């Protein structure tokens, strides 16, 4: 590079949150005008790095330099903004305000200064300046429109223009394509290349590796809070990149609940999903799960796999397709119908959808079966206690007693209560969305062991997750990408195969797997 000082140079960055190490001796260097990708799996430390680079958080150790100079003091927002701009995954424009006002929020005055307390806003001048700013970055948007009237990519352009208007020549894009369709992505990339020609440098964070190859020249991989490698993308093949993200895993330490080596039981089809589609989430998804089988439904955040799992539980009404459990059609879009048909459900977030925090363990565990706890619609405390006691011992829930409020339990034990609730109805099919979300390793083993037992007892389980550890328990794994099932792997898949499929860089489904996907 001609310019010796990179726009950003971070070295030895370490950041801890309590006992969790979010970043350990991490580094990154972005040259002027470079488009640099940062990739890594969940928990790799990408978001922490972003918040440190943008001054939202301070590193515990390490040096951070912009254009060769030390980073500004924490809290000096204007100084940070003039060095680094950031477009977050979640939109930060205010929908009800005009584009012009969004661009100059809280700096309505001349020259980008804040106005005096009593100085009125000059709307005409504001619009003129907004138009000028948008033209400078080639954004074709009317500044008089309200932000909510824009398309998603137009809104992003406005955010980029606003971010750059503070004077920064370095911009961080945190998963900018997550909410865009193919056309929007194309427009965004065209805009980014154009800005790059003007000398703007990018740090591009994405879960879609193909985009990294399309847009970026250099890629940095983080894994488990550490820097793994930095290389030009042209020198890094797909499989090498995926390998760097997942790391090598020794097969000797395979956990006991893994499905590897298990004889595939060819039981009757318990769950049949045909041509299921939900607008804006997924389309024409078909799958079959047989008795004695654990099926994985892998996919990253935007793949639609979670919505598909929730649809099976009756939380969404699909627009197309049918769900059949044990040979009988299930009325979709109704939780009681799904429960009656024999679908047990472990929701994605136990705090939001799983538990009633201030109620007791017993009450939470029996929430789905209150009709079985006494005659004539009564709920007898003695039966509730007995039922809960059985669940507590079956699932090994660590609690002072059935009457303890569920909020007082540890995360892993709370999750066991959620599973208990799902299993209370003795379902044919257990649909578990991210069943080990936020639990410690020991609970994780026990939870996945429980799921395995469900299948071994002649029922079937569907694990919807993006965690490879969750999916290792499965007899086979279907990978979803952008709302479609794109690949199927029998047990014994390699990490990089599955991750590649989830990130959308997989080869098309091999013919020999096709017969399982209708």
């Amino acid at each position: 590079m001609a310019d010796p000082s990179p726009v950003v140079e971070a070295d030895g960055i370490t950041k801890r949150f309590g006992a969790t190490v979010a970043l350990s001796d991490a580094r990154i260097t972005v040259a002027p005008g470079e488009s640099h990708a940062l990739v890594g799996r969940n928990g790799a430390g990408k978001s922490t790095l972003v918040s440190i680079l943008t001054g939202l958080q301070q590193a515990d150790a390490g040096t951070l330099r912009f254009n060769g100079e030390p980073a500004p003091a924490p809290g000096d927002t204007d100084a940070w903004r003039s060095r680094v701009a950031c477009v977050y995954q979640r939109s930060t424009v205010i929908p009800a305000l005009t584009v012009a006002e969004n661009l100059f929020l809280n700096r309505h005055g001349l020259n980008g200064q804040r106005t005096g307390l009593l100085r009125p806003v000059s709307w005409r001048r504001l619009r003129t300046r907004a138009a000028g700013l948008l033209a400078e970055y080639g954004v074709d948007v009317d500044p008089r429109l309200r932000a909510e009237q824009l398309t998603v990519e137009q809104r992003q352009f406005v955010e980029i223009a606003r971010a750059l208007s503070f004077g920064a020549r370095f911009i961080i894009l945190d998963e900018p394509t997550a909410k865009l369709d193919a056309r929007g992505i194309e427009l965004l990339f065209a805009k980014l290349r154009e800005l790059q020609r003007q000398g703007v440098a990018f740090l591009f964070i994405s879960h879609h590796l193909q985009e990294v190859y399309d847009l970026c020249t250099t890629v940095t991989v983080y894994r488990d809070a550490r820097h793994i490698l930095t290389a030009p993308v042209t020198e890094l093949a797909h499989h090498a990149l995926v390998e760097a993200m997942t790391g090598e895993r020794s097969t000797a330490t395979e956990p006991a609940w893994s499905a590897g080596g298990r004889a595939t039981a060819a039981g009757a089809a318990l769950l049949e999903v045909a041509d299921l589609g939900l607008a804006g989430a997924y389309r024409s998804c078909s799958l079959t799960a047989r008795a004695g089988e654990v099926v994985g439904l892998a996919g990253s955040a935007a793949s639609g796999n979670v919505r598909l799992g929730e649809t099976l539980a009756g939380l969404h009404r699909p627009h197309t397709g049918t769900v059949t459990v044990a040979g009988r059609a299930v009325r979709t879009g109704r939780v009681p119908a799904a429960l009656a048909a024999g679908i047990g459900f472990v929701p994605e977030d136990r705090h939001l959808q799983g538990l009633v925090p201030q109620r007791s363990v017993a009450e939470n565990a029996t929430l789905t079966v209150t009709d079985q706890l006494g005659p004539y619609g009564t709920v007898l405390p003695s039966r509730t206690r007995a039922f809960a006691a059985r669940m507590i011992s079956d699932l090994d829930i660590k609690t002072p007693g059935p009457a303890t409020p569920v909020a007082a339990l540890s995360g892993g034990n709370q999750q066991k209560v959620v599973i208990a609730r799902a299993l209370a109805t003795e379902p044919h099919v257990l649909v578990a969305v991210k069943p080990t979300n936020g639990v410690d390793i020991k609970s994780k083993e026990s939870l996945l062991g429980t799921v395995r037992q469900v299948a071994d007892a002649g029922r079937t389980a569907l694990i919807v997750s993006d965690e490879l550890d969750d999916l290792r328990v499965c007899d086979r794994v279907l990978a979803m990408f952008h709302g479609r099932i794109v690949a199927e792997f029998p047990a014994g898949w390699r990490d990089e195969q599955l991750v590649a499929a989830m990130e959308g860089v997989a080869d098309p489904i091999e013919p020999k797997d096709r017969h399982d996907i209708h």
Partner: protein
Amino acid sequence: MTSTDLGRHPDTLAPATGGRRIDLARYRDLSLVPVLLVLGIIGFAVSPAFLTSDNLLGVGQQATELSLLVLAEALILIAGRMDLSLESTIGVAPVLAMWLVLPDHGGRFNGIGLFPTWTAIPLCLAIGALIGAVNGFLILKLRLNGFIVTLGALTLLRGLQVAVSQGQSIVNVPPSFRYLGSSSWLGAPAAIWICALLFLIGGCALGWLRHGRALYAIGGNAEAARAAGIRVDRIVWTVLILGGTLAAFAGILYTGHYGSISADQGNGWIFQVFAATVIGGVSLNGGRGTLFGALTGVLTLQLVVNVMTLAGVPPLWNQFLNGAIIILALIVSRFASGEKQE
């Protein structure tokens, strides 16, 4: 995203500390019982008239109408909703029932005489149920903000009552309407027996019926209740209808008690209703509280007024003391239960 990592908390709360918290939480609903006892001792000290059956039954009878509104509001709050319009229902439901059954000539208040007189009570209850149903429709089907919807309903129904009754009291109420509020059974006013019975039924339903238990689940976490197969909207709607019906029934007792429907019947009660419910341990955020607690809340408010009256405090100070006791009771229940009130 590292957010899943950062949100991962280490195991919180060892079982050892859990024991003490649970014990206190279990008795949270009884936190006003000592307050009631202290009030009783003060009452006994200030006046020999306090501990007579006449006085206590009088307090009880005065508490009945308020306590029915509190019963209704407690059910609605436990299910995680609010209904401000109860205080208007208590007045407008009897007035509309009178308007429907009273003859169109001859009295000071003329109705339209559409139904026979004996239907007054069923009509009154049906009107209460209808008000609850309409509130439920607006809140649950049109997804309007419950607070503002019922605030609007409060004003609208109050206005409807004033317009229909032409701002006057209705004194020629039919005998069936007077009976419940004015007669005595087994030496105590019938209204007290009825209220006690309704609280008992309500308490049992909340404790032992699955739809009663569902209210706690809905109020505590509606999404979780939905994911567990509870028909959330249907149950909440039922509770709102039940609430309106109870308020209309309170109107019947109140009318019977005083022999007439005053134009401002129930006006401003909603503050007392909320105060009694909340100091009785029912959470404004839903999912928490018992009917017994709510009942002690009503009795506390009523006893304070009674003791003050007996102590010779001028009635002009009543409102001030009512406000003071609400805040005091909140402080007591805050520290008795050891939980913050968000």
